[in-house]
């Protein structure tokens, strides 16, 4: 295992983690501020990807496609919040899970109805295609570097927004005591719609960015949603910082585990069973990580201590 390969795999893990962060940030905000479990967050990721693919197909511009993804997911999020989610804040988590699960089915079949059952085409623009040479002789796809940079910029922007702006203060206040900030004259239902739309827009952007290198198809959001839940449990519910640290941890564990665990088992098993055992353990790695974190800190890395 050369240093170059190791560095490349670390970059891969980082990039995967940063994209997970875009999903997890919205999820953790919604959970933290509104106390709502939103299973339909993966559907918003899908909405973003499909909107991007449709607009990219129509205009040929990747930037327009990203803009469309942001808008479509934010609008879908706002509508869902006003029509469905608003009725769920005072219900228990089971009702929320049931209703948002129904939303997954509605979004999936609605998307199939609109776009058909076959995957759509969405590719990276030619100016971001191809590999670049990094210092140290690493050849790495330019697009993935752009993903890392964009993700970090968004993370920074989100952090600033939460800590420095008025809306950020309201969000933090809403997390701590929603009756109090309502009493102070903040329009809580407008705030909730805004937070939900913001979370949705981030998910939609992630869907479009990732859809360009993966596949744009119905049901693409749910596997990511599960990982995003793992991330917010590790990071601590409601914490943006926790979501960032959790995402990078999950991304690195998943990528490096997938590469090195089979190699590790090869030290004392024959090749085919080492591959078998290694890949099986690798798929468990992030859940083992989650278990360990929860034993050490039951509310997650940056969660509020009880």
């Amino acid at each position, binding site marked *: 295992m050369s240093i170059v390969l190791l560095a490349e795999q670390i970059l891969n893990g980082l990039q995967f983690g940063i994209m997970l962060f875009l999903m997890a940030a919205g999820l953790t905000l919604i959970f933290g501020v509104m106390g709502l479990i939103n299973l339909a967050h993966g559907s918003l990721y899908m909405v973003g990807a499909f909107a991007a693919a449709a607009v990219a197909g129509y205009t040929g511009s990747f930037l327009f496609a990203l803009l469309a993804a942001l808008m479509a997911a934010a609008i879908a999020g706002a509508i869902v919040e006003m029509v469905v989610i608003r009725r769920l804040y005072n219900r228990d988590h089971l009702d929320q899970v049931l209703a948002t699960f129904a939303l997954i089915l509605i979004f999936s079949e609605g998307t199939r109805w609109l776009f058909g*059952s*076959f*995957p759509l085409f969405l590719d990276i623009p030619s100016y971001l295609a191809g590999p670049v040479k990094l210092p140290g002789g690493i*050849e790495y*796809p330019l697009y993935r570097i752009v993903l890392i940079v964009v993700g970090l910029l968004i993370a920074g922007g989100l952090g600033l927004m939460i800590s420095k702006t008025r809306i950020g203060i309201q969000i933090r206040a809403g997390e701590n005591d929603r009756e109090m900030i309502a009493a102070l004259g903040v329009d809580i239902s407008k705030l909730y719609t805004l937070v939900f739309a913001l979370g949705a827009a981030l998910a939609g952007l992630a869907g479009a960015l990732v859809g360009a290198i*993966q*596949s744009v198809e119905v049901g693409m959001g749910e596997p990511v949603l599960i990982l995003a839940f793992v991330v917010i449990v590790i990071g601590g519910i409601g914490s943006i910082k926790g979501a960032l640290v959790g995402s990078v941890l999950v991304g690195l564990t998943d990528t490096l585990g997938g590469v090195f665990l089979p190699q590790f088992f090869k030290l004392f098993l024959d090749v085919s069973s080492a591959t078998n055992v290694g*890949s099986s353990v690798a*798929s468990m790695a992030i859940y083992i990580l989650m278990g360990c974190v929860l034993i050490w800190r039951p509310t997650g890395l940056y969660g509020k201590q009880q």
Partner: protein
Amino acid sequence: MKLKTVALAAAFSLTSALSAIAEPVKVGMITTLSGGGAGLGIDVRDGFMLAVKKSGNKDIEVVIEDDTRKPDIAVQLADKMIQSEKVDILTGIIWSNLAMAVVPAATAQGKFYLSPNAGPSALAGKGCHANYFNVAWQNDNLHEAAGAYANDAGFKNSFVMAPNYPAGKDALTGYKRFFSGNVADEVYTKLGQKDYAAEIAQIRASGADSVFFFLPGGMGIAFMKQYAASGVDIPLVGPAFSFDQGILQAVGDAALGVKNTSQWNKDIDNAANKAFVEGFQAEYGRLPSLYASQGYDTANLILSAMGKASVKDADAFRAALKQADFDSVRGEFKFGSNQHPVQNIYVREVIREGDVLTNKIIATGLENHADAYAGDCAL
């Protein structure tokens, strides 16, 4: 008086013989029509229904249900179809794990099962059954042809990769059964994985001269796009599942020139295939995939057997199925001893035809190829 009786008896036997042939047949189709992988089930259904429509046969009734790719739902649907719908024949399942959950129980209850896609090795060898027919292929077949092609192409050192589930293991076994070169590295990915950056880095570092991969559906789209962007230029070989008509447009130019193996392609030159490709385009406005061709062949096999025997007479109907007396879109088609196809498997290349990406046959990978498990089958 006597003459009259004889005539009457003759008339009776004639009508009963006629009614035997005109016996209505109820087919239960359980396939994946929603969720991930729905494109495959929709193609099988559309191909099947096209054949039924073209035949003009009013005696075949098809009940279609969506299994959503979940084994438990497939089992429930099969029970419902057998017990309350009283179907004679079951068909339609796409995924091997669902087939394993449904087929043994259905055939044990005396129903016929005709597989239009899944061909798990467990049902081809010791688990074969007189009422189970596979009209597509045994799971290993296309991968074996890929291995044979890799030898012909002069590859000596392959990097092999498949998802970590039964059909993925069948795939690597099949490839290695025929590939005589060295295996540089063997990687099992997670089922449903969409990011292959880590595997692509391993491919780059492996020093292999070829990459064999089996990643059906969306997994293949993701891998192909990322592989093209990575700048790694080791040639790819794979089965048709990642290069089928339904997903090629989503992969885009990244797929151009890749060699893949299939038992069918739209340019196989025979009248049945021509009629199928034209009919499918006219009916549905898109090019057929190999899944559609399998659905179409399955329906035609049932229709051919219906013309020969009553489905109520299981032995006669089984014998009629086994003759496979229909015009397959693959050209010649026959069943081996374990009721799986013995057929040619072709090597195709992805090309661009006008605006659409499609495949062209460039060679025959394996001729009259039967599967490796037929010997274990007691039939």
